[in-house]
């Protein structure tokens, strides 16, 4: 199972008409089995890329092949839909259906026609997302976390070999996020899981591979630890009383009785700053800092990025 994206560009027409809005710009990405974290700022093109992969949108140019099926063809689209599980970024469920009914409905639409199989899958998934006890209650009565869990349960219907989840933990409390990460980690198997998120911790905990989109292009693709190393030698803690360099990116700021302590990623040594081991967040900041000042580099499969 592999997803191959080559030269994919997506331009949305605008009301003004001229040229349109280029959201993806020549994306090249090969994704193998396992979990891939998809990172990027708001508007970087993550959701558009996911909608292309789920066949909801079609690319303006370029080619997407999933498990040998070309999404430019009707048979290809139909075949991929049979392999697909999708959790959109925002998912407003039918409030008048119960959790069980909603899953049964989606299972039917996904083509799980056999009643016994469908009931077993729905029951198993409700158990898996810990919603069995409220399965007969209407979704309108569910909390945000419960709705999100119903969302992931529907994505898993049919045991999809391509699972695409868009910001699944947004708005969840820490306990729900941990539960969700455990669920994703337990999926395993021979499937491609693409997890789009703003929450770097989710990627650090769950995804061995990561791709970063910046302004519609792939700024990084490789090992997650490789992204962290982008900030190696460039991450500093600046104690209170010292200035933050203008060209540094502030990753974190902590207010102490003595003043504010900054954690920064800087392309050059910081006077008074103490070098520290980078985290994924630092690496991501370093990459975006670099992307903002230089032409975006193509996927770096070696897993390291050096900031200038």
């Amino acid at each position, binding site marked *: 199972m592999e997803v191959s994206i080559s030269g994919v560009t997506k331009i949305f027409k605008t009301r003004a008409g001229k040229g349109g809005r280029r959201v993806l710009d020549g994306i090249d990405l090969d994704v193998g089995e396992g979990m891939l974290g998809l990172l990027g700022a708001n508007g970087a093109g993550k959701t558009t890329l996911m909608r292309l992969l789920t066949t909801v*949108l079609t690319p303006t140019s370029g080619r997407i092949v999933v498990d040998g099926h070309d999404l430019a063809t009707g048979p290809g689209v139909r075949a991929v839909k049979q392999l697909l599980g999708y959790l959109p970024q*925002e998912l407003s469920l*039918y409030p008048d259906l119960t959790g069980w009914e909603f899953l049964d*409905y989606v299972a039917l639409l*996904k083509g799980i026609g056999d009643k016994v199989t469908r009931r077993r899958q729905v029951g198993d998934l409700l158990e898996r997302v810990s919603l069995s006890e409220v399965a007969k209650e209407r979704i309108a009565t569910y909390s945000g976390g419960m709705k999100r869990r119903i969302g992931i349960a529907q994505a898993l219907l049919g045991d999809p070999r391509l699972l695409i989840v868009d910001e699944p933990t947004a708005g969840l409390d820490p306990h729900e996020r941990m539960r969700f990460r455990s669920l994703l980690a337990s999926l395993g198997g021979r499937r491609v899981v693409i997890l789009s998120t703003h929450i770097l911790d989710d990627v650090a905990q769950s995804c061995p591979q990561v791709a970063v989109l910046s302004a519609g292009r792939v700024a990084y693709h490789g090992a997650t630890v490789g992204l962290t190393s982008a900030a190696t030698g460039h991450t500093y803690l600046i104690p209170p009383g010292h200035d933050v360099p203008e060209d540094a990116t502030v990753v974190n700021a902590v207010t102490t009785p003595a003043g504010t302590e900054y954690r920064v990623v800087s392309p050059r040594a910081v006077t008074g700053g103490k070098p520290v081991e980078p985290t994924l967040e630092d690496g991501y900041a370093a990459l975006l800092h670099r992307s903002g000042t230089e032409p975006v580099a193509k996927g770096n499969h070696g897993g390291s990025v050096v900031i200038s």
Partner: protein
Amino acid sequence: MTTATVPRTLFATVRYEAVMAGRARVLWWALVPLTALAVLLATTSPNVVGSAEPVARVANTAILFAMLCTLGVAIGLTDRFVGHRRSGLTDLLDATAAGGTVRLVGALLGALAVAMAVPVGAFLVLVVITALSAGSGAVLGAGVVAVVTILLPAGLVLSTFTALLGVLVPPAVARVLTVLAWMWATVLSPALVPIPTITGTVLSPLGHYPAAAWLHESQAAATYGLDGALRPAVTTGSALLALLVALAASAVFLALTRIRLALAR
């Protein structure tokens, strides 16, 4: 979408849209009072009970139900398709093997089946009472014909029309426009208002032509006593034409709804 998935998708959407429609309070708030009013008028109005001929009484009752109850059905279903534009849900459903057009048709049929069950049920009760009091089995047959040729087409046209409005303008505005359009198409004849209307023509979805052709209603009732190219003599052909127009209009409204939903992606 393969041919094998079409029946399954249709079944799934009919089933669950029916469940959701049945649980929507607005439908019952709109439908129950209007059905009650229709029953009251059907049992007291001289236009209905004054008909000596039982089949004509069935026809007049059906016209009354079509005029009032389908309005309740439409008002209750105006925002059914707005749900198809719920954030993320459209993407999710589009990513399944189920086609959007089949889902839309299933959603319409499911919601309409639940909504029409109330007026059709009440109507058939009145038909049975009429048949018993007249001692005529033919009245029962007339009741079934009236459901098929008057109530269901009227419900279909108005539901698809209001569904289209529901995806174009806010539901409250759509409901007001639906009522106005229904009045224009079924009640306000050019003899009453100084504007062209389709009331009393073969384009009107109220079912007067089938009622006159097959259920002993008068030609004058079908055409409101007016002449014109759109008011041909009542025959089986003109009644079938009226039904065809209703079905075609429904198909057009549904197609436009589908296009609007697709453009909203």
